[in-house]
């Protein structure tokens, strides 16, 4: 086995951390160049060009084609000149450094990220859902990531699942989830909303008081109108006590009814009224909350689409693993339907087109598709 490939393998196994850099710099041409030399067919040995072209196009960096790479390892055995040719054909990633072509950090980290995707998926999948949610929440809080993931965990889990996650959080981190959220978000306008969301232990039965739902739809409408009219940022809505109260204490069936009345009264869905008023963290947190509570399948399908887009950033791609693993046992069927409705393409086809190797196969099994490659 070649030593640089050994180096690569060693770098990717064990405790490799994912590259946190924004990967939009890795545009498609670079990705093509990156994987091109690893397809032995295209440089040295003739092979089925069509098959390889299919593998390369639209990569966007979502996993690596392990079988092909492994066969490259075998074929390039004892042929250092081929590997040298590979490095030279690749000035973006290997800088000439005297006699050797030094590997650029970015290349290493990028490939590490690609190999790590599959590993992370397996680790996340194997964990107990409560521990998984607790770790996700902790990660958000201590890495200062945007609160979207926290909103997602708090709003899309059932009352008992959220409680279990909070219990796991106690055991893992010796604090309660709400105290950490309250502490980290204390200066943000959406602090009360977030604390309320993670502390919620909603009634789960179907009984809904129609009168109250109607009243609350009116109150929500008034809050949105007053924020828009006053020229204030929509953050004012997130701070509005009534809005926070309604969103963080009412049961989900009640909220579905409330949003239904909202649409009847104001002609538009509440998320449409909230979106498009700026893209600050505050606005997004509120919009995400409403989406997660009102239509989680639509929310998740949007997140998936964001991950499968060209030029998706690192967080967006991580979301693909997270959503596939966490929703696989729950509402994945609804998410697939929503995806088809919103984007006109089957979710499994989009994944198959963008992802590669074992990572792709794992995603497809989680998504519940029976896609034939």
């Amino acid at each position, binding site marked *: 086995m070649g030593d640089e490939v050994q180096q690569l393998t060693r770098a990717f196994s064990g405790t490799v951390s994912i590259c946190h850099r924004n990967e939009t710099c890795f545009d498609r041409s670079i990705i093509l160049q990156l994987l091109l030399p690893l397809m032995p067919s295209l440089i040295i040995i003739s092979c089925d060009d069509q098959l390889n072209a299919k593998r390369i196009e639209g990569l966007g960096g979502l996993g690596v084609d392990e079988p092909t790479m492994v066969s490259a390892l075998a074929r390039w055995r004892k042929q250092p000149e081929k590997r040298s040719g590979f490095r030279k054909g690749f000035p973006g990633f290997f800088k000439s450094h005297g006699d050797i072509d030094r590997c650029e950090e970015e290349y290493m980290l990028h490939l590490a990220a690609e190999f790590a995707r599959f590993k992370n998926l397996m680790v996340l999948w194997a964990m107990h859902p409560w521990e998984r949610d607790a770790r996700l929440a902790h990660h958000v809080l201590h890495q200062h990531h945007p609160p979207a993931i926290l909103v997602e965990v708090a709003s899309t889990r059932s009352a008992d699942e959220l409680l279990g996650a909070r219990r796991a959080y106690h055991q893992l981190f*010796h604090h*309660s989830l709400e*105290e950490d959220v309250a502490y980290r978000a204390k200066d943000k306008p959406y602090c009360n909303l977030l604390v309320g969301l993670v*502390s919620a232990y909603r009634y789960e039965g179907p009984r809904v008081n129609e009168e109250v739902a109607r009243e609350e739809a009116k109150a929500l409408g008034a809050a949105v109108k007053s924020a828009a009219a006053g020229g204030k940022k929509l953050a004012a809505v997130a701070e509005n006590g009534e809005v926070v109260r309604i969103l*963080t*204490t009412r049961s989900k069936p009640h909220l579905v009814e409330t949003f239904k009345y909202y649409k009847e009264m104001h002609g538009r869905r509440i998320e449409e009224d909230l979106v498009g008023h700026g893209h600050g963290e505050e606005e997004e947190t509120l919009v995400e909350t409403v989406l997660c509570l009102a239509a989680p399948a639509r929310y998740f399908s949007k997140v998936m689409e964001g991950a499968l887009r060209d030029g998706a950033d690192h967080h967006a791609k991580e979301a693909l693993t997270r959503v596939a693993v966490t929703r696989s046992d729950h509402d994945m069927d609804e998410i697939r339907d929503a995806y088809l409705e919103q984007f006109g393409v089957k979710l499994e086809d989009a994944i198959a087109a963008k992802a590669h190797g074992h990572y792709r196969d794992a995603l497809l099994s989680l998504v519940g598709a029976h896609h034939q490659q």
Partner: protein
Amino acid sequence: MATNTVSQVVPSAEDAAALLKAFQGWGTDEQAVIAILAHRDAAQRKQIMLKYEQMYSESLMQRLQSELSGDFERAMYHWMLDPVERQAVMANAATKCIQEEFPVIIEIACANSSAELIAVKKAYHVLYKSSLEEDVAARTTGNLRIACLLQLLLALVSTYRYDGDDVNMGLANSEAKIVHEAVSNGTTDQEELIRIVGTRSKAQLNATFICFKDEHSTSITKALPHGADPTGYLRALRTSVRCLADANKYFAKVLRNAMRDSGTDEDSLTRVVVMHAEKDMKGIRSAFQRRSTVSLEEAIAKETSGDYRSFLMALLGS
């Protein structure tokens, strides 16, 4: 530790029969009822209720409510409920007139362990088809004056505190400062204070209270402004701090206040005795005795009378 003594041997069928006998004829043999029911634990009481209904095709609860009256009846009604349901029922009643009865909610939220509070909330879901949080929070509608009070109540009720003993002294110090500032502000800018009291673990809060006392040579409750308290927020804050710091001492104080010379507050008396008789009444009794010249039983004997008194005494184990 519980104070009421429980007999293990009597089968529920026998108890049910004895109760029926006590109900028959003119009037009720209240002493017989007390002699049985005050000396049964929650599981046994449930069995008796089932057996009674099975044997005589009527609800024991309803029969008791029709046979008994006044404070005695109210006490017995609450006593017969399952302990977790009892708290849910009391919490629900309190949400209906929240500005007067909020101490009940605070007691339930702060004196219970995290797991016990969750059990109460689960029972609440089943009984009232809504959550305790939403019923507490919904009181704000049209009543923004008490928004601060309700924010505190909601925070106390929603939290799922960490149960462990880990304490971060640096944090306790910094939060004691924040608390001091909020306390000096009166009733404005209370968000930080509510956040701390509503989310930190009890161990952490106690450390914070101690730091406060060390720094300012007075406890938080004494540092809070006395006097005008139109919304009840200050009283709620005082109640929650006391309850979180030392629940037994707090309940002993409630009992003392209930039995002050100017008439007895039977509701509070019943509530404390019935809710804690099979839980931690012994601790409350010791706390009461520490600051009183008479024992708890003597005080109750002096301030109450009749079957109500007998019932309370039985629950206290005398």
